C-alpha cells in the first residue's frame, strides 16, 4: 500500500516531499528498507538527471529509482551537517534546497553540496524529480578520476 492510499490523498505536496526526504535520510543513517521511500513515489515516477552528471539520464519507475539510489550511494559520502529547506507553492510543486558538503568516493575530492530539487506531486505521490545542482561542472570534475 502506498503512502497515498494509507493516508488518503489529502496530504499537501510539501508533506509528501518531507516524508519522502525523511525516509531517504533514515535509509542513509540506519540502512532501513527502500519500501518506506518508494511508498511516496508514483509507480511511474521519473527522476531526470542532467547529461553531465555521473549518473545521467531519466530514471523511470521504482526500479529506475532504486538503480539511481545505488549509483548515487556508490558516488558520494556525505559529511555531517546536511540541511534541508522546503520551498513550496502548494500547487503540486515543491522545491527542496539541500546544503552541505560531500566527498566523491572515486577521487576523495570534497565539494560544497548545494542542490535545488524540483518535485512534482500528484494525488499524494511524487511523479517527477528534477535536480538542479548549483555547480554541475564541479560535480563532474570531482567525480571524474583522471
Amino acid at each position, binding site marked *: 500500500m502506498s503512502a497515498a492510499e494509507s493516508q488518503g490523498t489529502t496530504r499537501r505536496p510539501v508533506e509528501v516531499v518531507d516524508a519522502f526526504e525523511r525516509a531517504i535520510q533514515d535509509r542513509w543513517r540506519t540502512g532501513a528498507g527502500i519500501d518506506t521511500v518508494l511508498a511516496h513515489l508514483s509507480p511511474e515516477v521519473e527522476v531526470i538527471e*542532467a547529461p*553531465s552528471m555521473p549518473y545521467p539520464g531519466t530514471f523511470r519507475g521504482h526500479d529506475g529509482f532504486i538503480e539511481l539510489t545505488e549509483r548515487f550511494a556508490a558516488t558520494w559520502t556525505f559529511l555531517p551537517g546536511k540541511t534541508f529547506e522546503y520551498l513550496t507553492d502548494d500547487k503540486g510543486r515543491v522545491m527542496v534546497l539541500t546544503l552541505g558538503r560531500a566527498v566523491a568516493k572515486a577521487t576523495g575530492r570534497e565539494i560544497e553540496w548545494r542542490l535545488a530539487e524540483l518535485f512534482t506531486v500528484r494525488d499524494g505521490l511524487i511523479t517527477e524529480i528534477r535536480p538542479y545542482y548549483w*555547480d554541475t561542472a564541479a560535480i563532474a570534475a570531482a567525480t571524474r578520476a583522471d
Partner: protein
Amino acid sequence: MSSENLTIVENFEQAALYERDFEKAMQYAHPDLTVREAPSLPYRGTYVGLEGQRQLLADVDRLFEFDGGAPKVEFRDAGDDLVIGRVTGRARLRATGEEIDFLVIELFTIRDGKLADIEVFYWDQAALLRAGEAERAAAERASAERAGAEEPA
C-alpha cells in the same frame, strides 16, 4: 506580503529580461542587488548592482541567444522572503551554433520590499562550458592572427 513579493520579482524580470531596461528593473531592487552564478560558469561569481546587471547581460550575450528573444519564466511564491523562478526555453550557443535546452531555477530573496539577491541554478552547465571554451579559443586565434599581421615581413 507574499503576493507583493511575487509582483516585485515579476516587475523586475519584466524590465530586465524582456525589456532589457536595467535602470527600470533596479527600481524594484536594492542598489547592491547581488546575482550569484556558479563558480564553474563562463560568467561566474557575483554580479552587483546596476553595473553588475549590465555586465552579466553582456557576458551572457557573448555566449548565447535565446530562441524568440527570451525564455519563459514561471514565478511561484515560496513564503517568507523567497520567490522561485523556473526558467525554460531554447538557446543557441554563438560559438558553436549548438541548440540547447535552457533550464534554470532562480531563487529570489526579497528584503524590505525590494529584491536583494538572486541565486541561479543551471540544470546542466556542460554546454555553456563548451561554449566558453570555444569562445576563448576563437579569441586566442584572433589575437594570434592580429599579432601575425603586425609582425614585419
